[in-house]
């Protein structure tokens, strides 16, 4: 640009500014009378609960006066009201301890998202097309009641199904009661990264079917088998806080963290020692450690009691798991196994944990049982610095798995409660096709996503900041926790709290549900407060388990090793999780802690393997499994096994708000629909793939930094040992 152009532009923009400043009405929208009496400029902090994962972190929201665009009486306008402006961890909360993860910080964007549904909608286009027309609440509720009344009239109440997230708490209790009184079966739950394998293992090993709480703070030695406990697994805020205290050098010196995995995750990056291990063999390493401990008389085998009895060959000292055998199966050198075992037994308390990819193999249950037995062997169960379980107020509500309604008789009416199985299931599972066969689907979520686009009716709920919320965290604290909190702000739009809509429906059915349920969710929470606070003592079931001892079986992989030479390892994104938070732009914007990539998908390939194959950073790679193909840019990672490729889950949405739609690709789509043995949970780590270089960089790899800045220590393995 030359000076002449600059002057011209300056003059033009100046004139434009002067003209637009003339009589510019600040708001074209009408203004409503404020509903609150607020002191302008003064902030108040109100408690709430983060809804973005199952940890149930207590948060506080900073509420200040502000102008908001709202819907009142079906009319858009502006109102001065108390608005939640910032979320922080609640210092009084036992789980969050005043801290909050990036997802929790970004949760504020749920309420103010520009694509949030502001009023009920009815489908006008084809199923899945996402075309809806506005309708009134009266019409919407009448439609829903009509569908439910028709089921009652046909005496077919069992054909109603409700699909929700597997979040333990009083909300799920109330949903279950609602369904039971209607005559329908238990709620159906769905979560891609479900921990049900671990719950099942804990039931077998300890008689407690729930997630463990790990006392990192007091542990002296931690061995993590694939558990990304600092990033995405379980109660990551509580775990990170405890880990921070563990690292502050207690009386016995700095505790050690060992991480075994096929890929350098965020937690692995924090570890003192990274042990590269073949996918699907983690339990073998755990039993290898147990073998050395028993063989060297560091602990007696019968220390493990019931947990040991769950493993075949435990009483005989695990003869099949000598360090040499372990090396053959896992690729971890025998000397490393010996050393880790001795360190693990010498440091007290020492604790092992497993989750994530190891449990998403056909033999997932075995790995969990093996780690449980290792913990029991060194006496780290129910002691400080070990594994404990939070006492729960009551038994968990019985739920059903999604497969039950996909493969069995299809329900006639499906209620969707903010779950997105169409996105988070392999294409081969044909979830969308199964949903198309359901005659009527009503969704209660706040956004149109791949699943709710299939709905006939959308009855959008309030955001969590506008409604009563509750959580009964399953893990993350040494003591029982049950929290509930009221709304921190008035609703912006013409939405209604989902639970209150269902309770209203229960009263207005042709044959109202009996005995009557509370009028509102608030009433239910307050009536149940006494019950929830009961600190029920945890009863460990130490008697003999009725389950037969489990024998190790090699993991089954989908795809022939010759044709599909690489393990495909999808993993939960630090920010986008299973994709359910991909619509929040702050989370898209945050660079991934390991790769620094943002707003995109990428495929992690071993650096040296990439060189061999002529693949450079950013090159477009095609990944093909027996079930589909996808293309994404390559990210060369020195910390991944040479026979594996990894991809973060979360991107690849086809219909999920303006910020997530059309970004990246969804690795879940090409997975095998195989399940973990004895469960109906997806074995998402068991697919094999082949890779082909398609072209040079296509600019789709967006990175904040240049490459991985720190490399794993050469002496401790760099993922290419096997």
């Amino acid at each position, binding site marked *: 640009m030359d*000076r002449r152009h600059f002057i011209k532009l*300056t003059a033009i923009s100046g004139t434009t500014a002067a003209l637009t400043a003339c*009589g510019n009405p600040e708001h074209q929208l009408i203004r409503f009378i404020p509903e609150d009496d607020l002191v302008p400029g003064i902030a108040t902090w109100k408690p709430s609960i983060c809804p973005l994962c199952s940890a149930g972190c207590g948060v506080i929201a900073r509420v200040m006066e502000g102008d908001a665009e709202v819907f009142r009486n079906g009319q858009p306008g502006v109102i001065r009201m108390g608005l939640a402006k910032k979320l922080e961890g609640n210092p009084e909360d036992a789980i969050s301890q005043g801290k909050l993860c990036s997802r929790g910080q970004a949760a504020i964007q749920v309420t103010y998202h520009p694509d949030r549904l502001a009023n009920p909608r009815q489908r006008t286009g084809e199923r899945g097309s996402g075309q809806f027309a506005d309708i009134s609440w009266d019409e919407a509720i009448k439609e829903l009641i009509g569908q439910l009344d028709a089921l009652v009239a046909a005496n077919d109440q069992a054909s109603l199904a409700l699909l929700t997230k597997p979040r333990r708490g009083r909300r799920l209790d109330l949903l279950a009661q609602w369904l039971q009184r209607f005559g329908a079966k238990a709620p159906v739950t769905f979560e891609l990264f479900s921990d049900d394998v671990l719950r099942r293992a804990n039931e077998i090993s300890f008689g407690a079917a729930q997630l463990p709480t790990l006392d990192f703070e007091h542990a002296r030695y931690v061995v993590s088998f694939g558990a990304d406990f600092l990033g995405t697994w379980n109660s990551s805020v509580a775990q990170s806080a405890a880990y921070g205290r563990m690292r502050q050098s207690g009386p016995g010196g700095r505790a050690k963290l060992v991480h075994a995995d096929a890929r350098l995750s965020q937690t692995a990056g924090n570890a003192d020692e990274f042990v590269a291990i073949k996918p699907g063999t983690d339990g073998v390493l755990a039993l290898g450690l147990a073998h050395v401990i028993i063989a060297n008389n560091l602990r007696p085998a019968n220390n493990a009691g019931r947990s040991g009895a769950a493993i075949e060959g435990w009483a005989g000292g695990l003869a099949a798991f000598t360090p040499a055998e372990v090396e053959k199966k896992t690729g971890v050198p025998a000397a490393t196994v010996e050393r880790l075992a001795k360190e693990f037994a010498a440091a007290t308390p020492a604790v092992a944990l497993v989750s994530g990819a190891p449990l998403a193999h056909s033999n997932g249950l075995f790995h969990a049982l093996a780690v449980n037995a290792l913990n029991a062997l060194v006496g780290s169960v129910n002691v400080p610095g070990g594994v404990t379980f939070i006492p729960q107020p009551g038994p968990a509500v019985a739920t059903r798995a999604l497969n039950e309604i996909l493969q069995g008789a299809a329900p006639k009416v499906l209620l969707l409660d903010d779950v997105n199985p169409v996105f988070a299931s392999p294409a081969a599972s044909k979830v969308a096709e199964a949903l198309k066969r359901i005659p009527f689907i009503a969704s209660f979520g706040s956004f149109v996503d791949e699943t709710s686009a299939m709905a006939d009716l959308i009855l959008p709920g309030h955001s969590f900041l506008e409604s009563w919320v509750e959580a009964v965290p399953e893990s993350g604290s040494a003591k029982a926790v049950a929290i509930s909190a009221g709304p921190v702000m008035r609703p912006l739009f013409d939405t209604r709290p989902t639970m209150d809509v269902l309770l209203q429906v229960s009263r207005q059915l042709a044959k109202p549900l009996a005995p009557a349920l509370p009028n509102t969710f608030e009433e239910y929470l307050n009536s149940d407060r006494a019950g929830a606070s009961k600190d029920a003592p945890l009863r460990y079931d130490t008697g003999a388990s009725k389950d037969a001892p489990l024998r190790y079986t090699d993991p089954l992989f989908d795809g022939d090793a010759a044709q599909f030479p690489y393990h495909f390892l999808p993993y939960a994104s630090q920010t986008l999780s299973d994709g359910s938070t991909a619509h929040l732009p702050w989370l898209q914007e945050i660079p991934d802690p390991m790769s620094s990539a943002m707003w995109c998908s990428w495929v992690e390939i071993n650096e040296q393997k990439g060189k061999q194959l002529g693949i450079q950073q950013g090159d477009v790679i095609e990944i093909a499994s027996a079930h589909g193909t996808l293309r994404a840019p390559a990210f060369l990672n020195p910390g991944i096994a040479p026979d594996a490729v990894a991809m973060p889950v979360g991107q690849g949405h086809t219909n999920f708000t303006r910020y997530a739609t059309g970004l990246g690709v969804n690795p879940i789509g090409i997975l095998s629909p195989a399940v973990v043995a004895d469960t109906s949970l997806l074995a998402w780590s068991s697919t094999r793939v082949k890779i082909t270089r398609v072209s040079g960089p296509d600019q789709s790899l967006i990175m904040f930094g240049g490459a991985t800045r720190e490399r794993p220590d050469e002496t401790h393995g760099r993922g290419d040992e096997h």
Partner: protein
Amino acid sequence: MAFPSRKTAGAWPNWALAFLFLVTLATAACEFASPGQPSGMADRSRWGTSAVLTPAHATAGDAITAFFDSRPDTIAQPFDFSHQIHLSKGAVCTDCHTGVEQGPRAGLPSVNTCMICHSQIATDRPLIQQLAKMQEQGLDLNWNRVYDYQPQAHVRFNHAPHIAAKVACATCHGNQQEQTVARRAVNMTMSFCVNCHKEKQASNDCLTCHY
């Protein structure tokens, strides 16, 4: 685009020069014509402002406007509310501008505040009847704020300590008893604040106001 030679860059078109001259003249005229400056105030600087010409503006026009602080003194309001009438009837500032004693900002009254009195007083006036109707419909008045700071000045003002220090409202907002619709009677330049702080022996540390 190539960098222009000196020859081509040297010539400024006449219309551009004329435009710049006009803008300068207009803004200067606005400045000197500013009415309502109470007597006894600290001297204003020649241009009445300490705002800086920075690139932190959406347009060059905005930058020029901010530099010369040429804002209109009267701000359009939903209707011609008379401060004079209300104050003469014994109302005080804090009746309607709530929050000044507790917090940083002065509140602007909603229709509900008007109707506290006007549900009883002057109910026969057409404007009051309009307000009553608005309240029935749940609609509020769209007041426009008269005083504020340019965001790039990074000034934070807190009413509460000033009220506590017994600074009269009129010191900064002019004598409202003489005004109908509120107008910018005082130009709140930095020297205006600093002089008063000096006089009252209040802190003149930068961080008192700029943070």
